[in-house]
């Protein structure tokens, strides 16, 4: 029963803190910092469903985020939909597309699968770059009128923030729920030995396609919210390969296969990059320092920060899953 798991309450506490901290004293700067942390946690924890739970490295995970952004921004700016139905529709549309792609490429394994995910990213980016209704390479712009139903840009940005925090909490609860379920057990079996799992009765192709599709839903919703807030979307920013790679780095930093690890890795990495970028002394070297620190952590704690914590305090495993 998921309600008995202490981590669920920690997740809710984290979300409440995220919502309350910037609201207290109307701290917009903190809100802007935290929204990027929340986005990093959303992307990392959903990526964890594929890499950490199923053992399949997805290099093209960002495609869900970008496509979600496109579908949502299109529905809002061209069709005049409200933010929330646009985001939810984007989530379902991208999940459906992922399910179809998944049934095809998830028959591949290991490096072949990883390469195929890069192929999906490039193919989708090329399609969008030539798709007239979505503005081809120039993309789409959100007019200031689109913020009007939410009370203008000032209120719209707060609303978007709270929605992103909610999506972050949902991402972590989803990860926890799957981990605690029989379905999750099937995924772990695939991760450990796919052939043995098939012999034991796990329908690996369907399981993998479902989790590939599920891992697309919330990043697509987040894509709509973030690009609405961003004010513009084009293929180069929606399908940025670097962001996909950063997701994998964040996951390795926190500890793949664990719910708390994906949140910790995403949150810490984002805060570190943000701090280095705005630090008057270190900003010139921010990429070098971030890279060196990551190498150090991965060298000293190959199981990520959560793996290191498990080794240090074995009983922490019962609370921090």
């Amino acid at each position, binding site marked *: 029963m998921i309600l008995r798991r202490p981590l669920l309450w920690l997740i809710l506490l984290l979300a409440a803190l995220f919502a309350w901290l910037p609201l207290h004293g109307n701290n*917009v*700067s903190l*809100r*802007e*910092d935290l*929204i*990027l942390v929340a986005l990093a946690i959303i992307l990392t924890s959903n990526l964890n469903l594929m890499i950490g739970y199923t053992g399949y490295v997805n290099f093209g995970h960002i495609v869900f985020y970008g496509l979600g952004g496109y579908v949502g921004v299109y529905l809002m700016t061209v069709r005049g939909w409200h933010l929330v139905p646009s985001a939810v529709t984007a989530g379902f549309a991208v999940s459906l597309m992922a399910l179809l792609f998944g049934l095809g490429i998830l028959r591949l394994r290991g490096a072949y699968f990883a390469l195929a995910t890069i192929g999906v990213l490039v193919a989708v980016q*090329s399609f969008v*770059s*030539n798709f007239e209704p979505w503005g*081809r*390479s*120039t*993309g789409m*712009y*959100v*007019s*200031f*009128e689109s913020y009007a139903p939410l009370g*203008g*840009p*000032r209120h719209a*940005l707060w609303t978007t923030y709270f929605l992103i925090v909610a999506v972050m909490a949902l991402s972590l609860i989803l990860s926890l729920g799957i981990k605690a379920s029989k379905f999750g057990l099937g995924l772990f079996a695939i991760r450990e030995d796919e052939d043995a799992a098939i012999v034991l009765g796990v329908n690996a192709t369907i399981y993998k396609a479902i989790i590939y599709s599920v891992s697309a839903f919330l990043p697509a919703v987040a894509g709509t919210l973030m690009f609405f*807030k*961003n*004010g*513009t979307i*084009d293929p*180069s*920013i929606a399908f*940025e390969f670097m*962001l996909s790679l950063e997701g994998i780095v964040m996951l390795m930093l926190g500890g793949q296969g664990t719910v708390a690890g994906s949140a910790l890795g995403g949150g810490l990495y984002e805060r570190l990059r*943000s701090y280095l*970028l*705005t630090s008057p002394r270190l*900003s*010139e070297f*921010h*990429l070098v320092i971030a890279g060196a620190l990551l190498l150090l952590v991965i060298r000293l704690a190959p199981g990520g920060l959560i793996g290191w914590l498990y080794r240090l305090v074995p009983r922490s495993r019962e609370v921090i899953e």
Partner: protein
Amino acid sequence: MKRFAFIALLLSSCFIATAFSQQTITLGFTVSRTGALNVDSVEQYRGFELWRDQVNAAGGIKAGGKNYKVQFASYDDESNSKRVQQLYTRLILEDKADFLFSPYSSSLTATAAVVTEQNEKIMLTTGAAEEKTYKLGNQCLYQMFAPATQYLTVAIDALKAKDPKATVAFVYEDASFSVAVVTPAKAYAQQQGFNVVFSEAYAPNTTDFGAIIDKVIGSKATVLLGGGHYADGSTLARQLYGHKVPLKMITLLVAPDSPQWAELGDAAVGVIVPSQWEPQSTFKAQYGPSGADFGKAYTAKYNTPPSYESAGGYASGLILQRAIEQAGGIDTAKVAAALNATDVTTFYGRTKFSTQPSEHGLQVGHAIFLAQWQKDKSGKPVKQVIWPLAGKSADLVYPIH
């Protein structure tokens, strides 16, 4: 008597202190110190920097009886819009920036505009030519570059004056800026009676243009318009020259503006580039330094001639300085009113902002130049202004070979 003299001295010292009271004005912006936009963005930054240093050396901006020293607050946006809103919020709320300059590129500027609009902060934009950004209902943006639609339409005007029967091919990078430039240019060419015989977009990292060049030859086009950025533009020019494509005119975006273009040797010669500003331009400045003085100061500081991005950066500072002086201080509403009323010629050309609510801040005064690489007397490739005819430094060489 002594007491009276003392009071007079005290009063006069107060007056002197007021007359020269020093204030600081903070200008915030992001620079793409890393990432794909690095080169152009840093050139723009150098323009800001040179302006700041010259203003401060002259005692600051003098407005309303005060001297405002200029200081910068800036961060690296990594050429990525993801962090732009976080950084502009920080610039406004924590660094207390009084005014803002835009990041480089239309996409990053549109993202920053959501925040500046929300905080009602004035932002002068450079390197953001895409018109859409100014048609979203904003009130605080002021565009320094001439809009993107003009980049190739002026080349079509120049062509019409020389050869109205030319057949035109568009070969351009499949990226936001070049598509925004080529789409209206194609329609304009047809409207001007030109036969557009070929049009194809190529992927941003294309290195082999063989197939496209064969199609251009097959189309019997006599003029090629397009390009994108430096890497693809220079490769395209080199391969067009290598294949001896019989073109009478080649106009490429952005890349040929760089001084590096001369390194292409004979392949560089004849190529035309639309430009926001050229060192040879001879505008009679009503305000600020002459083009020659700006060029000299820039070259002395950075050991390289200024590009139009640098000129745009410097001119942004100049236009803001003039608005602050006219407003008599740094009150946002007064400075905005001064910017709205701006119609001035500087070394960079004319600057006037649209005040129509549907396109507030769009640049309506500045116009695009055309520059062509031609051989000087010693046979070295040099850039010459060929359009507008009133400001030309040489005649258009047509056909190229």
